[in-house]
Each structure stands twice: as structure tokens, then as C-alpha cells.
């Protein structure tokens, strides 16, 4: 379990990005970390991985603070940045260099992932295209079998079939011991994968809910006419009508659009908070 307690951090001490942030991330989940540009998603991933030192508070993995950055911790945290470094070596050399550092690394799985993502393993890694490098890094991150896998914009640069394969691979990798945190703007790529959803805005966690709870509380419908103000929690003009997010009164199952949810949470934060905290009609 990752526990962030009263954590404050800012790149400038006078201008804090996070102020007394509290967040708990439990094993067995694939957290989707959403937020606008500059909301602090990547910074939060770096704080979790111990790459940044908080001014106050702490972030712990189990009993250990991640900032300790001891090797036992580093073996259990894999942070894949948006642009990851790959050296000018061949695949087997890369494995020879890096796999000894990750004792649970599974080579069979790695090559299976590469096969699933349609990556050739003959030449130098640096000869691969941007998207192929991304696939390679994702395959390595998943095969490292670390307890914590932090992925920053993992689907950027992936082609359409690869995005689907990525979802399958991540879904098949998760187990009761692992925590995935995926920071992304590509929410449609993450549909049916991320759960719970965490939304950051101005350095605050403004939303942190499981999909089941979201679907229990909210419903999505499409209609031609513009809804009344009190009829919808949030709505957007779409092709041929309006996409409306409103309270789920009848408890029916429905498929929530994460993009619409994100916009609703950011635009009508207080209303959403009230609904989820108290369950009362807004």
C-alpha cells in the first residue's frame, strides 16, 4: 500500500503545488491519475517514486518511506516516464544490463509482450520508432514484476491496435500485490482499465472514486434537447444533441464516459463532491 500523508511540495517553496496532500493507494488496483496540464500528475508520480523530496509529510510504500530510495524499495518501484531512456544496445544486451537489478523479472513474459505488441527484437533498440520504443519500455516495465508500476502517459505514441493490446497486458498483469498508477490525458484509451479514478486539479485530489461507485451515483444519457439547469449535473454539446451527466436515481447500470466525468468534476466540483460525500441530490 502507498500512503501519502500531509505531503507538501512545490518547485518553489513560496508556490506550493501540493499542500498537505493525503492519499492512499491500495494493492490490486490500477489507478487512473487524471488532470489538466500542470495539475501535478507527473510530479506526484515522481514524489511517489522518491525522485522528489517533499517539503513536509511523507510517502511510504509499506513501512518504508520512498524518499529513502534504498535498493529494496527501488527494486519494487518501476517508474516509466513519458519519454524513457533506451540505450543504443540490442534487446538481449539490454536484458543483460537491466534484468539483474529486478529479481522478479520474467523474460518469457517480456518476449510474449513484445510479440503481442509486434516488436522485432533483432536490431538496436534505438533504431525503433518512438511508438515502438514506447512499446518496448512498457513490455519491460510490465515484465519487471515490481510491486509498484508508475506509468506516465503510456499510450502516447502507441498505434490504435497497440492501445488495445496495452489494456489487455496491463489487465492481465495486475494481481493482489501490485499497484498500477497510470497518469494520462488519453482517457478513452484507458476505458475499462483504470479503476479507481483520481482527478488532480491545482495540486489537490478533487476526486477519488471507484468506477462502480461512479456508475452507482451518476448516469449518462444522450438527448436532442438542451437540458434544464437543474436537470443535469453537467452536459456537453455533442454531435446530434447533448451528452448529459446526472444523478443516477434509479440505480441502473450505465457506462460512464470518463472524459465527460473529468469535465464535470473540474467544472462542477462542489456539486460532485456533495453527491459523492453525502449521496444527497444536487
Amino acid at each position, binding site marked *: 500500500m502507498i500512503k501519502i500523508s500531509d505531503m507538501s511540495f512545490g*518547485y518553489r517553496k513560496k508556490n506550493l503545488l501540493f499542500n498537505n496532500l493525503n492519499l492512499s493507494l491500495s494493492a490490486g488496483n490500477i489507478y487512473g491519475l487524471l488532470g489538466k496540464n500542470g495539475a501535478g500528475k507527473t510530479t506526484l508520480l*515522481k514524489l511517489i*517514486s*522518491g*525522485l*522528489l*523530496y517533499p517539503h513536509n509529510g511523507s510517502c511510504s510504500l509499506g513501512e518504508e518511506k520512498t*524518499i529513502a*530510495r*534504498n*535498493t529494496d524499495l*527501488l*527494486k519494487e*518501484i*518501476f*517508474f516509466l*516516464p513519458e*519519454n*524513457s*531512456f533506451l*540505450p*543504443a*544496445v540490442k534487446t538481449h*544486451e539490454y536484458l*543483460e*544490463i*537491466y534484468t*539483474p*537489478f*529486478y529479481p522478479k523479472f520474467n523474460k518469457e513474459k517480456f518476449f510474449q509482450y513484445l510479440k503481442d505488441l509486434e516488436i522485432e527484437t533483432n536490431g538496436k533498440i534505438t533504431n525503433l520508432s518512438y511508438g515502438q520504443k514506447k512499446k518496448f519500455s512498457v513490455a519491460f516495465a510490465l515484465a519487471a514484476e515490481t510491486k509498484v508500476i508508475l506509468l506516465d502517459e503510456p499510450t502516447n505514441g502507441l498505434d490504435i491496435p497497440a492501445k488495445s493490446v496495452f489494456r489487455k497486458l496491463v489487465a492481465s498483469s495486475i494481481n493482489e500485490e501490485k499497484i498500477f498508477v497510470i497518469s494520462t490525458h488519453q482517457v478513452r484509451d484507458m476505458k475499462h482499465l483504470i479503476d479507481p479514478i483520481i482527478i488532480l486539479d491545482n495540486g489537490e485530489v478533487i476526486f477519488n472514486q471507484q468506477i462502480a461507485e461512479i456508475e452507482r451515483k451518476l448516469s449518462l444519457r444522450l438527448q436532442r434537447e438542451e437540458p434544464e439547469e437543474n436537470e443535469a449535473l453537467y452536459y456537453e454539446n455533442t454531435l446530434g444533441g447533448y451528452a448529459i451527466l446526472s444523478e443516477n436515481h434509479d440505480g441502473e447500470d450505465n457506462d460512464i464516459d470518463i472524459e465527460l466525468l473529468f469535465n464535470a468534476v473540474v467544472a462542477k466540483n462542489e456539486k460532485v463532491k456533495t453527491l459523492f460525500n453525502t449521496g444527497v441530490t444536487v
Partner: protein
Amino acid sequence: MKRQFEIKRFLRTFWRELALNKINILIMIASLTFISLLMNLISQRPSLPKLGRYGIDGFPIVALIYCVIIVSSSFSELNFSDRKIDFLMLPSTTFEKYIVKFIYTTVGFILLSISSVGLSAIIIEIYHYLFPSGTLFRKLLHSYYYYNYNTDRIFQNYIMFHSIFFFGGIYFRKLELGKTFLAAIGIMAALGIYLSVLNVLPFFENVSTPFDMMNVSMQINENADLSLKSWSKIIELNRTVKDVVILCIYNILPIFLWTLGFIRLQENEVSDGV
């Protein structure tokens, strides 16, 4: 201690460094060998007798220039966001990462220089074997006599330059070579000015050991005239100061800068802007 240093982990980190830099190492050996051969060639030109002397003696200077460039860029991965994350997230301690870089730039570089010299000597010997006499190149190419070098002095200089540029490589972000060079010049200039000021103060009496320097203010003789005796004292003092400065520069400074570099690297691990 085991948490800070473990031999298996250290060897993995060592292997990673070697595997990632093997092309650079080969390029360095090739270019140093080439320069070594070139200097040999130039040094043997009869029309350039002075250059000849410098040609042979100059190889350590070339190696030193190489050292400065390599050492100052030994932590260059900290300047690039992606490489920095790869370096910092590697499951190995800061101490192990530091020691690996240290060994590569000290023992590794010395071995690399010896390899280059050895390789150039072998090439020359092969050439002589293939073209025993009478050719133009036979006159131009001669084996080096490296054993004539003052290796202690070379080693001392190497260690001093290594410590300065190794620290600069960790401390400065981007243009670390230039910044370290400027900082070193600045410090040397300040030291030079300080020593020059000492030179023109002919008021010292009974100052003969470095420890007496601490009591200079107590021993100023306001009525002293510039005499032969006082000049000899000044010369003696200058020698003492020079000895102290050399002692500091060659022995204390490297240890100080290496330690400071390690502390700085630890700070760097958790600095902002990763």
C-alpha cells in the same frame, strides 16, 4: 554498510556502465592511439626540433585534456531528464553509482591511456618489422620512451585535475566543463592575488613555519625596515607557503572535492526538476 555497498550489486552497476559506454571507450582508445601516433610522427620531423621534444613529452598533456573532458562529463546523464530518471531509479545505491564512475575515470582512464600508448607502440613496431630500413616513415616513426616520464608527477596532476572536474561534473548542470574551468581559474586567480599580496608585505619577522602564518597579525613589526635579512625571511616564507599550497592542492583538495562530490550527488538524487 551492506545496505550502502554490496559487491553483487556493485558489479551489476559496473557492468551496466561498461555496457552502455563500450562504444565511447573504443572511440577514446582509437582517438588517443591516433593522437599518440600523430605526435610521434610530428616529434620526429627534423625541421621541428623543439616540437620534437614537446611531441614526446606532450602525450600526458593530451591524456590530461582527455581526462578533463571525460571526467567532467561522467555524470552528464544528470543533465537529461530521461537519462536522469534511468540513473536515479536504478536499484543501486548512490555510493555504488559514485564508486563505479570514480573507478572508471581513475583506474579505467589510466588503463585506457596505457592501452592507447601500448597500441601505438605495437603499430610502430609492426611498421618497423614490415619496413625494416630506408623508408621515409622509418625515419619518422620511432617508439616512445614513456618510461622516462616522471610518473609520480603525472599521477599527482591527474588526481588533482580529476577531483576538480569530477566535482564540477556533479555540481554543475550543463556546460559543466566550461563552468568548472572558469570556476577553477577564478579560484586560482584569487589564490594568486592572495599570495601576491603576501609577497609585498615585508613586515614579517620570525615567520618560518606554516603554523606561524596563523599568528601573522600578532607578529607584525611596524618599525621593521626592508633589509637583506627580511628579504631572506620573505623568500623563506614564500617557500613555506608554496609547500603548504602544493600539499593542499595535491593531497587535501582531491579528497575534499571527492567527498563533496558524493554529498552533492546524494542531494542531486532528490533535487527538484528531475
